[in-house]
């Protein structure tokens, strides 16, 4: 805790990022559905959009694993746009057909898309109407209908999760005054949640709730006694809504690597008045174990030059982890947008001289990659193979949102994700 504290104690104005505008090579917020539906077992995500939305979802998911997944697209057609059909009537009939077939669904998210926003289809209103309908919770049915936007006009990739969770906030009951709780925000693998729960228990911090959770019918309460700890760096909208309900937002680096995890747990520990001794007693062993297993990958990664192209908002925290715990030399760290509130503790820890780029002009960015030839470039799937073909090693960034990478026990797994392309490249003789 002391190392991170020392760094936090000397905040400095980080140099302004270079801002670029051009072609953005990022997913839209709809892609968050791919992991959100797996976390929330009783939900269905109905995108109201175009064939492009449906195609994106199945391409981002990679393969079609499920007969009937818990997401689908209501595709707008010529007759909907021409006003021949009433969009709201059409939507009602699609939803009713869907819910009749799926008795397992408790929460239905109507997800807005670029086309639904451009034609100004009001999905909040639709959700309200459906809730009053025969299947809706308010109408005596079993399904709560909520709406959020995953459109590329409003959201970049992981912001889809922010929008979804923000839609849940009004559903959270009020925390009685005098009570307190800790809300951990951001989809985590179940195993990681359990690990964190055990640590919080040992620290005497609780009750702890994770959002989004498996069961969307049992919402944790929120109020003035609530402290919010962000497990992911993309909760701008949700943070504002929780703050307006009186919750206290804890500021901390994100729980990647040993240092990040210590600082993150430390923020909760301070809010709960946990003594340094107890904090040390609970965290020393797992931290030491994580440092030990990280060592192997540090050997591979130390001194390697890396560039992050903007993608999931995880770039800055992961770059910090790689630089400080794995000895990586950072050339460029791109981020789709810079959320100062969320990122300041991370920026404070970034080494000097890193080129920080906000926004994207993919062509110019690729020019820099080609000129600097980093040892590893973290980028999206559309760019990875073309860069490999230039003799450059890459790490697909989407894996970073699907793989458990948070906390002490995953610190080495996280480093391994970056070491693997380098080890593989060294092994191949063809």
């Amino acid at each position, binding site marked *: 805790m002391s190392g991170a504290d020392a760094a936090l104690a000397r905040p400095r104005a980080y140099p302004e990022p270079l801002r670029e505008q051009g072609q953005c090579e990022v997913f839209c917020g709809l892609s968050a559905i791919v992991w959100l539906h797996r976390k929330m077992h009783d939900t269905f995500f109905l995108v109201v959009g175009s064939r492009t939305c449906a195609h994106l979802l199945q*391409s981002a998911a990679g393969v079609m694993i499920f007969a009937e997944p818990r997401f689908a697209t209501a595709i707008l057609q010529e007759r909907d746009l021409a006003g021949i059909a009433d969009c709201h009537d059409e939507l009602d009939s699609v939803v009713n057909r869907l819910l009749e077939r799926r008795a397992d669904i408790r929460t239905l998210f109507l997800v807005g898309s670029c086309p639904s926003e451009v034609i100004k289809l009001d999905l909040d209103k639709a959700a309200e109407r459906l809730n009053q309908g025969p299947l809706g919770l308010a109408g005596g049915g079993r399904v709560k209908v909520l709406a959020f936007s995953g459109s590329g006009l409003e959201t970049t990739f992981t912001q889809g999760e922010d929008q979804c969770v923000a839609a849940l906030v009004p559903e959270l009951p009020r925390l009685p005054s005098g009570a307190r709780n800790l809300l951990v925000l951001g989809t985590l693998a179940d195993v990681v949640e359990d690990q964190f729960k055990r640590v919080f228990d040992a620290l005497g911090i609780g009750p702890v709730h994770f959002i989004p959770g498996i069961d969307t019918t049992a919402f944790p309460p929120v109020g003035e006694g609530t402290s919010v700890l962000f497990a992911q760096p993309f909760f701008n909208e949700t943070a504002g809504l929780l703050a307006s309900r009186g919750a206290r937002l804890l500021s901390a680096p994100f729980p990647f690597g040993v240092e990040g995890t210590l600082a993150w747990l430390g923020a909760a520990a301070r809010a709960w008045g946990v003594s340094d001794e107890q904090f040390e007693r609970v965290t020393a062993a797992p931290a030491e174990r994580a440092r030990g297993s990280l060592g192997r990958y540090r050997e591979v990664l130390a001194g390697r030059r890396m560039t992050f192209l903007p993608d999931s908002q995880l770039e800055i925290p992961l770059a910090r982890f790689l630089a400080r715990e794995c000895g990586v030399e950072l050339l460029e760290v791109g981020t789709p947008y810079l959320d100062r509130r969320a990122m300041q503790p991370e920026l404070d820890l970034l080494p000097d001289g890193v080129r920080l780029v906000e926004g994207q002009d993919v062509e110019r960015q690729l020019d820099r990659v080609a000129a600097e030839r980093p040892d590893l470039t973290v980028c999206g799937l559309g760019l990875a193979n073309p860069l490999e*073909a230039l003799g450059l090693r890459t790490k697909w960034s989407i894996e970073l949102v699907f793989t458990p990478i948070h906390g002490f026990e995953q610190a080495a797994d996280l480093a391994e994700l970056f070491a693997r392309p380098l080890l593989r490249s060294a092994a191949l003789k063809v």
Partner: protein
Amino acid sequence: MQLTVWTYEGPPHIGAMRIAASMRAVHCVLHAPQGDTYADLLFTMIERGERRPPVSYTTFKARDMGTDTAELLKTRVQETYERFRPDLLLVGEACTAELLQDQAGGLAESMGLPIPVVPLELSAFSRQENWGASETFYQIVRRVLHAQVPAPGAAARASVSERCAGRRPRANLLGPTSLGFRCRDDVVELTRLLDSIGVDVNLVAPLGATPADIARIPEADFNCCLYPETAASACSWLERMFKQPTVKTVPIGVGATRDFLSEIGALTGIDVSAAIEASTSRLPWYSRSVDSTYLTGKRVFIFADATHAISAARICTEELGFKVVGLGTYSRELAREVRAAAARYGVEALITDDYLEVEAQVAALHPELVLGSQMERHIAKRFGVPCAVISAPHHVQDCPARYAPQMGFEGTNVIFDTWVHPLMMGLEEHLLTMFRGDAEFHDEATPSHLHAPAKTPPATPQTPETVSLAEGGPTAQTAPDAGVAWSPEGERELKKIPFFVRGKARRNTELFAAQRGIQTITVETLYDAKAHFGR
């Protein structure tokens, strides 16, 4: 609104991207919101493309819509031209941009770039990917060849045999595209095949062609329309404008390859009988060899793009001795052709782009083999039915490293192997029946080369996905009514049936009983059902 779980085809601008990515010296600018760049990964991941598809996007966001998205488009067009210096620029709109009505194509045309700019009207809300590919290819061909179209009343083009006097005829291979099924190898195979009858390939397009190549299309004596999904409109325009004949047979399968050669022979006056005689296909002999007897009457369900579905139905029926029990396509533009083919095999065509409808039909028909796209592979996997992929949309595992064409005589060898191997057993099936009473040969036996007795595998945990599948998926439709039960004798008799077909026998018998309101399945019911389903 149309409720869609999975989609066979992408939106039409994906088709435009496929044409751009197939060609050289062509670039496409898409007016599209942020996020639509996901499509790049289809090319770089499924086909393992070594270059980014030559597509630039405006990637507009909400804040751009407050200002001027049209201006953004012009900037992107200008930057793209300067950076990539293509010989031809395609400009189209993805669905959202179509709603903005910026008239992207017209705007770009008016910019005065020193290269042909082809505006695309893609009808994002009514059309799909293959139509988009076809339309884009057609527009390119029209644009490049516009100036060469003979004036009305110009001298009629000589017949193919007259034109070719004293030289080898030249053919264009039209239709192969990026992300098409096995196009890369089909082109190689057909180039060899045509060479063997003395025909040269003038050019292949769109795959590998430049706009300058497109300009040479009229130099060929005829066109081979290999994939009507993408090339039929261009071929028919060339036929109308340049009187350039089209060879329409798609050479997938032994019979179709022979017909393809015969059609060219008739057109050019070349005697193709020697080439047909010298066929390197092993399929006819493999299919006649006695171990193939077990293929007789295997029930096959086919669902694919129209080209591959129609070809597959003919191969199954005439060349492998299967029985086609279902035939369908998601290619609405070619529904008529598929319906006609289905009528030939005595089945009703399934024309749909609803994946759940296809799944329901597979469940109802109980096929022994499914030939389809990536989607049908998943359906078949869930039902435990063998499957081979024969058409796009396909996944990375269907872009093999080895030479694996579908067309021509080598294509028939590839097809024999890949369609028959999933069925696996051949002669083995007879052996299994013969030895089924042996002590070592039952479903719980340990393989004889392993000494430890097999442990019962743990029950598959009920993940939420399998739960939802059980509730909404096909199992619910095939499960018997709760009223049907097995008598002890019936159950004992069922156990005597070889384990690898027992599951099917159980399902069929229960279905049979349920349909007839039989409460208890006896030995008699079992054999009645066997007689009913048997062939």
